[in-house]
């Protein structure tokens, strides 16, 4: 027996849903709903199961995004995406790790639901316009226009990621050492003058320990050096 195409493409479908929603929990729900739909389809009639499944997942993710984006607007404090731990094997892909970084997902958060779905499908998954059109129910011209608008929007806001991979780590190390040793001057030098702290405390309050880190604040506001610090690689990509 051949494997169910849904199982074969599960990772891809999860990634599409996660990029559109910025939440792994919501992406899981969307996959569940999509699976139920897929189970009711006469699969023998489906010529391209991958494209068909991406379409189902996109539609479900769009519906979900429209619902949750209203909730995110009412959220107390900043709503940030759900971080994932990325595995080293996606490092070969140049764009994927950046696309699931918190920075990038936060930029995508500023797009409207349809814009975001179109951007994700077109820019990240190279989906042909004919398929995008079917997923979002717009004309090809409208889809192209939405794609262009989304691309410009993202280009204006995405951080300029460094080309060299060694540099960011060196900066982080310098920063952590400065924090742990309480060198305010050094901390200030590592931070850009317009550095921004965006904190998500779960929608009820701002996280106390992370309220302020600005160069003007006291270094004690930043996670206390006494705290147990475990370095890992949470996705954030």
């Amino acid at each position, binding site marked *: 027996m051949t494997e169910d195409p849904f199982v074969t493409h599960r990772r*891809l479908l999860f990634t599409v849903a996660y990029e559109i929603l910025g939440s792994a929990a919501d992406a899981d729900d969307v996959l569940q709903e999509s699976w139920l739909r897929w189970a009711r389809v006469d699969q023998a009639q489906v010529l391209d199961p991958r494209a068909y499944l991406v379409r189902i997942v996109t539609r479900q993710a769009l519906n979900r995004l429209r619902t949750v984006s209203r909730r995110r607007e009412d959220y107390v404090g900043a709503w940030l995406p759900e971080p994932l731990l990325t595995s080293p094997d996606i490092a070969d892909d140049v764009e994927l*790790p950046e696309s699931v970084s918190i920075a990038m997902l936060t930029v995508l958060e500023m797009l409207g639901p349809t814009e975001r779905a179109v951007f994700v499908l077109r820019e*990240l998954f190279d989906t042909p316009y004919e398929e995008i059109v079917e997923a979002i129910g717009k004309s090809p011209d409208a889809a192209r226009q939405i794609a262009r608008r989304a691309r410009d929007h993202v280009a204006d806001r995405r951080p300029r990621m460094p080309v060299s991979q060694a*540099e960011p780590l060196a900066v*982080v190390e310098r920063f952590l050492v400065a924090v742990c040793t309480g060198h305010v001057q050094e901390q200030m030098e590592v931070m*850009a003058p317009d550095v921004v702290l965006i904190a998500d405390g779960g929608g009820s309050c701002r996280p106390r*320990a992370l309220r302020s880190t600005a160069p003007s604040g006291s270094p004690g506001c930043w*996670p206390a050096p006494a*705290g147990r610090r475990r370095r890992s690689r949470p996705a954030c990509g």
Partner: protein
Amino acid sequence: VAERSPAARVEIGGQMAVVSLVIEDGRLTRIYAMADPGKLTRLDAPAELTR
């Protein structure tokens, strides 16, 4: 991966948080701090992502 946009899991007084940093031109420009426990449940095993 993490090298391009590094992140760390930190624990302060028993409270877990993920801090993700953006570095541009050799300096920190953005610090994202996530402390919502409901959003920090997927950090023990790598997520299965692909294009």
